[in-house]
């Protein structure tokens, strides 16, 4: 096959144009990889950067979501609502304050995903980590004001595991108790029931993506009191206390107790 100069130039033009078009597409893609804090991914979603490479944006998870929690993002979201509630076009998401996840036991959305952008290894919905509930505003939370609202605690599908009420004294009245809703990251799935049902105008408890909600301890930190922590166990043997079973020569204790000194008279039969 011979290549004429004309063909060479045409193809060079096309190759350059193709690179430019691709660069343009990448420039559209990369900034819109960010997602707003209230945008939550379906259960089992991979970490965001992997998710955007794995998701085909087919909407099969949306179709198989019984409570219609999930929706596909549209460019229109950007204009019709606030800018913040946008995410990569065509990808599935939900907003907890809008419709929270009902935590279906059979997790149909994950089963529907053809590309494992929703990880099929997730079989127990209690292991899902869609986000983490954070009591973002203690100043307006009714329980922190000393009232017994408790709604977030009551609606939590993992009540007493994901959210507990921690009793503390109300310093303001000095005689009442406060029951403070406390989220535990080892149990919270990020379903958003608490955020949805918060009675305030703006929810005081909000589900945030893990990356925003969680700190991360330096990897060299070891909690000595953690029973799972085996790395920092003391390497020396526990010191054993050797207490004398018999009185030693020169021991003064018996003298002080009024007993005969050891050796001065055999302690044969008790008291003198």
């Amino acid at each position, binding site marked *: 096959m011979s290549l004429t100069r004309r063909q060479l130039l045409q193809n060079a033009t096309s190759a350059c144009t193709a690179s430019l078009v691709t660069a343009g*597409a990448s420039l559209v893609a990369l900034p819109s990889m960010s997602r707003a804090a209230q945008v939550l991914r379906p259960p089992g979603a991979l970490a965001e950067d992997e998710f955007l490479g794995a998701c085909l944006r087919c909407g099969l998870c949306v179709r198989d979501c019984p409570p219609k929690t999930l929706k596909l993002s549209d460019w229109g979201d950007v204009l019709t609502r606030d800018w913040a509630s946008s995410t990569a076009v065509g990808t599935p998401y939900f907003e907890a304050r809008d419709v929270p996840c009902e935590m279906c036991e059979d997790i149909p959305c994950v089963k529907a995903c053809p590309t494992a952008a929703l990880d099929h290894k997730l079989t127990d919905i209690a292991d899902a980590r869609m986000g983490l509930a954070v009591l973002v505003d203690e100043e307006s939370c009714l329980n922190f004001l000393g009232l017994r609202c408790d709604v977030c605690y009551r609606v939590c599908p993992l009540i007493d595991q994901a959210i507990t009420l921690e009793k503390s004294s109300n310093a303001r009245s000095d005689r009442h108790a406060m029951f403070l809703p406390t989220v535990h990251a080892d149990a919270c799935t990020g379903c958003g029931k608490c955020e949805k049902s918060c009675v305030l105008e703006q929810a005081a408890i909000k589900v945030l993506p893990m990356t925003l909600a969680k700190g991360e301890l330096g990897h060299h930190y070891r909690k000595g009191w953690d029973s799972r922590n085996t790395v920092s166990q003391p390497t020396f043997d526990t010191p054993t206390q050797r207490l004398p079973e018999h009185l030693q020569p020169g021991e003064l204790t018996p003298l002080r107790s009024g007993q005969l000194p050891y050796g001065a008279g055999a302690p044969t039969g008790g008291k003198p």
Partner: protein
Amino acid sequence: MSAVHSASAHDWAGKAAVAEKGRWLAYRYLVLRRISQVSILLLFLSGPLFGVWIAKGNLSSSLTLGVLPLTDPFALAQVLMTRHWPELSAVIGVAVVLTFYAAVGGRIFCSWVCPVNMATDTASWLRRRLGIRTGRAPVHLRYWLIPCILAASAITGVTVWEWVNPVSLTHRALIFGGYLALGAVAAVFVYDLLIAPHGWCGHLCPVGATYALIGKPSLLRVSAQNSSQCNDCAECYAVCPESHVIPIALKGKEGASPIIQNTDCTLCGRCIDVCAPEVFLYTHRFNHKRV
């Protein structure tokens, strides 16, 4: 080519065919294609609109009647380039699609399935009607775009084209709602109308180009079997979205096959419709008969 265009300028393409063969035969495949395109949309829409679920998902990946997975090869290729391995259903889906289009005809996706085709057909019809002659697109651009996009997906780790792909954006917007994504199809329409003739489907779209590559071995072809009847009206060139595929089959030297070999051909059948002397017909790739 300018002579070709001016020949069809004062009369609309297909006028002679309507007079000769009647309205139905002059528009047969155009009508059938529109029915096909709309029916496929309805298969996806019957669920959300009427609660009758036939096909779920969209053209990127779908599940029909709960058993038949179908996955777009180009979209999945981007996923694979991000070094993510999909579930089995996507692999089966892409295998079904590859088998079907490789066996039947690669770009029948473009002309019989893709929703963008309605917009680009309208744009090129308007171009002819309004006599717009401006613009051109670089040749082979779509075939260069495929490796560029795959490389960009590998580098960025995201499915780059799915942010801007008018095919999936349009189909998704029609089925899942979202009017702004329909802006993509509007952009394609304007591009085809004013900037480049047959610009999108014929020069840019890497999805269509992928189907053209898949269709290399396919059976269904258009043949200029009755080329001796050709009266050089050039209406087939005027309506063909890939007019470079016609000459060899129609005017090839002695012994050349009348089969359109180039898989850029979308098998839309408009040439069959508009040809008054009925030069063209659908046939299989091994039928080299010429009359």
